[in-house]
């Protein structure tokens, strides 16, 4: 009879509730961490913990395996020489050496500006003439295309001596001791980049009276023969072209902070990006004390 079945069910429902209520009364929060009666630690017995941890171990090993597999497949698709995409680096940044946007020089205190000189010197080590003589003497004014041929690409010479007064060879203080500091500018390396036009650097001081500047190499040209770049692996001896600018400061310019902006001009490289202030341009401040 259906009615007979229902009755114990209804009774069971209520008794279950009562039992649960009693249990709740007896158990305290301590039991939820370790229950000495059942041997439960955090609500599970040792074997229960073992099983569940084993389950998760297997689960995660499987997942890690799948991760490793997909990563391996992805890595297989990569080229060692050229990145798959260059979506974020269509234009090179312009960077100055010394690596500081606020250059403060006390021309009578060599210790004070010593670290700038150190920075420049270290950077120019690669451009030592002895080093560069190993590289090719390329025809200027045209791209040094090396498509096809071996994977190993040749680099064009950029001798430190090209920077003449800013090479640090004749004047080891790069003009800092005379209050006419040299700043080196370099375009960031970007694989395969070929500028359209004839790029050169132009610096302007944001002051009322124009500041005299001297560029090395002459006319601040960046020669096309240094493009394109073939990447770290293929183009190991690549020396990226530099432009040095020597600020010919006069006494009137001392003790004031000069804001100087340098841009790459004469080619299609972007130098007016509103967000990235280092794309094809760089702004830095110089202050020289006597």
């Amino acid at each position, binding site marked *: 009879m259906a*009615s007979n079945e*229902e*009755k114990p*069910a*209804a*009774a069971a*429902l*209520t*008794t*279950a*509730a*009562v039992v*649960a*209520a009693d249990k*709740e009364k007896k158990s305290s929060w301590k039991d939820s961490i370790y229950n000495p009666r059942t041997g439960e630690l955090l*609500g599970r017995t040792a074997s229960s913990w073992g*099983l569940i941890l084993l*389950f*998760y171990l297997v*689960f*995660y090993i499987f*997942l*890690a395996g*799948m*991760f490793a597999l*997909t*990563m391996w497949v*992805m*890595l297989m698709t*990569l080229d060692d*020489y*050229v*990145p*798959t*995409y*260059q*979506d*974020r*680096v269509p234009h*090179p*940044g312009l*960077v100055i050496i010394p*690596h500081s*946007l606020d250059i403060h020089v006390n021309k009578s205190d060599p210790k004070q500006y010593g670290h700038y000189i150190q920075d420049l010197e270290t950077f120019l080590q690669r451009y030592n003439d002895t080093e560069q003589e190993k590289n090719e003497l390329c025809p200027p004014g045209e791209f040094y295309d090396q498509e096809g041929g071996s994977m190993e690409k040749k680099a064009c010479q950029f001798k430190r001596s090209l920077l003449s007064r800013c090479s640090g060879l004749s004047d080891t203080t790069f003009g800092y001791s005379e209050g006419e500091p040299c700043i080196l500018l*370099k375009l*960031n*390396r*970007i*694989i395969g980049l070929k500028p359209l036009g004839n790029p050169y650097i132009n610096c302007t001081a944001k002051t009322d009276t124009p500041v005299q500047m001297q560029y090395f190499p002459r006319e601040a040209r960046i020669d096309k023969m240094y493009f394109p*770049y073939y*990447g*770290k*692996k293929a*183009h190991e001896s*690549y020396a990226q072209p530099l432009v040095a600018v020597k600020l010919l400061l006069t006494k009137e310019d001392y003790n004031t902070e000069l804001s100087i902006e340098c841009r790459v001009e004469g080619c299609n490289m972007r130098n007016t*990006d509103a*967000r*990235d*202030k*280092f794309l094809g341009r760089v702004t830095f401040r110089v202050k020289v004390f006597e």
Partner: protein
Amino acid sequence: MFEMDGDGKGKKSKKEKKKERLEGMKKEMDIDDHEITIEELEMRYDTSIKKGLTSSFASQVLERDGPNALRPPKGTPEYVKFARQLAGGLQCLMWVAASICFIAFGIELARGNLASFDNLYLAITLISVVVVTGCFGYYQEFKSTNIIASFKNLVPQQALVIRDGQKNQINAVDLVVGDLVEIKGGDGVPADIRIIFAQGCKVDNSSLTGESEPQSKTPECTHENPLETRNIAFFSTTCLEGVANGIVINTGDRTIIGRIASLASGVGNEKTPIAIEIEHFVDIIASLAIAFGFTFFVVAMFIGYEFLEAMIFFMAIVVAYVPEGLLATVTVCLSLTAKRLARKNCVVKNLEAVETLGSTSVICSDKTGTLTQNRMTVAHLWFDNHVHAADTTEDQSGQSFDQSSETWRALARIAGLCNRAVFRPDQEGLPVPRRLVVGDASETALLKFTELTIGNIMVYRDRFNKVVEVPFNSTNKFQLSVHELEDPMDLRYLLVMKGAPERILERCSTILIKGQELSMDEHLKESFQTAQMDLGGLGERVLGFCYVYLNEKEFPRGYKFDSDEMNFTTSDLCFAGLISMIDPPRATVPDAVMKCRTAGIRVVMVTGDHPITARAIAANVGIISEGSETVEDIAIRKRIPVEQVNKSDARACVINGGQLKDMSSEDLDEALRSHPEMVFARTSPQQKLIIVESCQRLGSIVAVTGDGVNDSPALKKADIGIAMGIAGSDAAKNAADMILLDDNFASIVTGVEQGRLIFDNLKKSIAYTLTKNIPELTPYLIYITVSVPLPLGCITILFIELATDIYPSVSLAYEKAESDIMNLKPRNPRRDRLVNEALAAYSYFQIGAIQSFAGFTDYFSAMAQEGWYPLMCVGLRAHWENVHLQDMQDSYGQEWTFGQRLYQQYTCYTVFFVSIEICQISDVLIRKTRRLSVFQQGFFRNKVLVSAIVFQLLLGNLLCYCPGMPNIFNFMPIRVQWWFIPVPYGILIFVYDEIRKLGVRRNPGSWWDKELYY
């Protein structure tokens, strides 16, 4: 959530105070105005039973006591209602998270780290989410409150009062204590009145006590209890017939009904089950968040971060655990169900109550007006020695009996003629059962019955000109009238009589059987007795009918009949038959009760009516099922004393108010536990409250249905109070959480079904929403520990939580039930939680983990393909985030400015976002079911879900490819192939979950089932 524990004590003391107030209220019921003499009464209220009060004194008293109206229950101020919307469990979690964000932002600011505004944005977003959903919830409640308010009766009640010896019609609001008022049939009683004169006055007390029988009112004090005595008529009841005069003894809130109404406002509201579930869920989240945060705090310290930095990591992790979108999801899901219910005429006052019916395990139902129609109706007839059943359905759709018998015609004629009830005019358009009638309940029933069977009874009566009538009184217990016959040639008079069956039988010598007048023999008498007993046992009120044609010679035309002397034949009449009446159950109720039972819900009847009637209706609607016996039944069957009966043998039990008064709460609990079918009769409002409390003590979630003021305290106390929209009093509607606009008890079944469905679907929505918390959190953890460039940004997370994933999570609310939920037991509130450990573990550590792997695969791919090998990424963070480093070399020797690296980082955010989206599509598909295969459930059956997926993809594309996004919301237009990298993981999620479900279905009760079924 921390605050909540704190004010537990405060609440308790408040409760105690309320209890004291309740006790006080019970004592206040002691009034003695009914016991003192009229003279004392006049003295007490400075009034006169002839002239009433003087107008000037009355206005003074009015000034002192205030108007005679029930003060609307102190409505919660609107700002409190709004504040309540901001203080739920989830809301508290979000407040805490927001303040942590502010603290973290403050620390960052103090350290001079101006770049990081993420924490501030996060805090502002969290607060706006709480406020916006709060506004939404508030608006929903406001709307349903308006629906309910529109039901209020706006017509002011009038009262006939005698002041300065003059009769005046005034607004009942202006009545004062001591006023002399007159009431007549059809009027509402305008205040609590001590009757000083009455003539055939009967009052319907059903709204106050639940009695369906009208109570007669007389000037004599018959009982010391003011509720039982006959010489007090109560405010808000209606006078059905007769006239009475009385002195107003209480007005406004001091009336009995006012006290019951304030009793209701003294009862605390119970927390809804869903609120409890959400708090439990918040506890789980909070403890997981703190555990996680602390672990990584320790790890960060170990790695060598500064204390403050590690502290900020800790805070960020805790905050990342907050499911920002969940609050909106839950609110929208609940209001969707509320809307669905509203379409089925259930209006929910409080959104959370939507689910409560689904958890309900006991329904305590009032009888009159809820289970029954609150309308006396002819149920059975006995003539020709047979019982015939009449049609009691509300719309006259039921079967009628054979009306060809001659006896029936005679019986119908008596019922039609010996009847003083009349229809109110201008109701021809209305169906008969709904027409208004002036007259007492049983006469009304007979009037409607004859109108339906004979047709146009008023014209019929006119054809039989009434010569004289003797109205019913309590001493002779019959009513008779003498009529001329319609045939003008037949000059006999017809005497028709109805009354208590025994009294009628005494006066009869013959009986009409099949149109033949037979002499009354013992055999017929016996069958009359059985019929009468049977019908009485059904809780029906039985009336006997007889007639006689008066002798033409003895009583010629123009004979002076005298109703006082009764100078005519009143014996040796011819018995025609019995008609019995009952307030019949609503047509939909038995079926609804049955459905409740199959759904494992116990239906308990709690009524103010008499035990026999209560029991009969209970048996009729299935609250007491066929074959169930009470202890008394068993005693009679076995012929043993009641004490010897084993109580557990009795399934059914009828307890009346008197017995209940002597029972301790343990006895009551025991009775409720041992008898599955319970009926409580003659209960007072307080006792209803006690019964509800007892059910709650037994761990049940209790729904109370009712319509009267007497139900309102119980409605308030219940986990969900359900009031009737049409028949319900304002007090009941105010105390209730849900209102049935069509008074249809069957709507409760719909409510249960929808409540259960939303509980299941909320579970799915929450599981879906929680899952993505892990892929949102792991990037940060990896960022801290392995120092890779940040894979997923704060704004992106907010877009996932509050934009793309909201619609899919809400669409799960449209999912159909997986199994026949109405055949399952109600959930056990202690065991079947909304969010249990299995759900959290499965979502977080399994599906969430797969999603994280998908995200990192895509992240590392995007990095590698743009020039940053995975191994190079490790430990890259310090340089990557160095603002001054403008020529950072990637794996191919290219040099990147900071700006370029930042866009690359945004690209990573976007691919991670896309990975989570792709996996979430898979996730929403698997969440369609918890046990069944998705193929069994139907892939495309939930159209909303399909459109949600389309929406999610479109929005994802819009975010990625809309110009301007990179700089506003940090989304980059990514390579198309990066959308496909997470696809294998999406497939893995789907396949894995199908395997899980298969295991759960195949091996119920196994380890797999226990650990992986949520």
